[in-house]
C-alpha cells in the first residue's frame, strides 16, 4: 500500500511517471536551474549492451539525451506547447563505466517560432568527462499533436 504522504513528493521528483518508456528505464530528473536540467537513468543489468564489458547500451544514451533535450525545450516553452524530435546527432566519446548511472545535462539554447535547438551531454562520474554529446532540432507542436 502506498504511503499517501509520500506520493506528492515522488511525483515532484519524477515527472516521467506518466511516460511509459522513461519510467521503464527508471529515469528521474535530478536538478533544474538556469534552463538546464539533469536527467538520470540508474545502472541496470537489463540495459547492458555487451555482457562481456557490462557497459550500458548506446540506445539508452540516445534515449536519455532525446528525452532531456525535448524536456528542456518544453520547459523553455513553459509547457504551453509540445515538441517532436526532428533530428538528433549523437557523438560517442567513450564507453560509460559499469555501475554508474547515466546522467544527461541538457539545455534548449535557442527557440524560434517553429523550431527548438537543443544540446546535451551524457556522463557518468563527472560532466567534464562526457560519455557522449548530442545536438538536436525539435519541431514545436501544439499540445496533443499527432503528426
Amino acid at each position, binding site marked *: 500500500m502506498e504511503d499517501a504522504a509520500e506520493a506528492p513528493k515522488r511525483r515532484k521528483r519524477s515527472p516521467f511517471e506518466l511516460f511509459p518508456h522513461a519510467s521503464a528505464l527508471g529515469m528521474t530528473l535530478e536538478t533544474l536551474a538556469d534552463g538546464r536540467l539533469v536527467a538520470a537513468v540508474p545502472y541496470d543489468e537489463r540495459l547492458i549492451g555487451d555482457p562481456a564489458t557490462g557497459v550500458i547500451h*548506446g540506445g539508452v544514451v540516445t534515449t*536519455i539525451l532525446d528525452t532531456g533535450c525535448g524536456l528542456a525545450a518544453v520547459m523553455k516553452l513553459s509547457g504551453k506547447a509540445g515538441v517532436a524530435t526532428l*533530428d*538528433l546527432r549523437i557523438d560517442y566519446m567513450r564507453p560509460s563505466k559499469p555501475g554508474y548511472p547515466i546522467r544527461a545535462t541538457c539545455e534548449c539554447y535557442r527557440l524560434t517560432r517553429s523550431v527548438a535547438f537543443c544540446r546535451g551531454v551524457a556522463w557518468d562520474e563527472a560532466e567534464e568527462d562526457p560519455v557522449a554529446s548530442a545536438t538536436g532540432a525539435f519541431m514545436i507542436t501544439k499540445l496533443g499533436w499527432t503528426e
Partner: protein
Amino acid sequence: MSEPEEEARRDAALERLTLTSPYHRFIGVGFTRMGDELTGRLAYSGHLIGNPAIPALHGGVTGALLEITALMQLAWDDLWRRMEAGEAAGEGPPRLPKTIDLTIDYLRSGRPRDVFARATVLKAGRRVSNVRIEAWQDARGRPIAAAHGHFLMPDG
C-alpha cells in the same frame, strides 16, 4: 558440410550474435536474415511508448533500433566473411564495432506497433565503416526514421 547444416550453422551464429545483449531483450529487438542481409524487428510493447498522449513510440527507442541494426549488420558481415573462409566463427564472444557518431532523422511519429529496420553499409572500412539505416512500420516506402553513422571496427 551439407547445405541444411550450413544454414543451421549460420542461423545459430546469428542467434548468438543478436541475443547476447540484455538491452536487445529489454526493448524486444530480434533479427531475421535473407542471405547476408539482416532485417531488425522491434516487437511492440507498451513500455516502448514515449508520449502516451499521441501515442507514439519513444524516439530514443527508434534511435536504438537504428543503431542496433547498423551494429548487427556490420558484425554479421564480419562473421559471414569468417564463416565463408572456413573459420569456426561465431562460437566465441561476438566482435562488435563501436559507434563513433549517429545522426537520426525523425520522419514520422512511430505508431504503437512493430518497427522494422535495415542497414546499408556504404563503406566497409578497415578501421571505420559508414552505414545508413532506415526504419519503417506499415510500408517500406514510408520510413518513420532514417540515420547514418560512423562505426569503429573491432580491429580498427
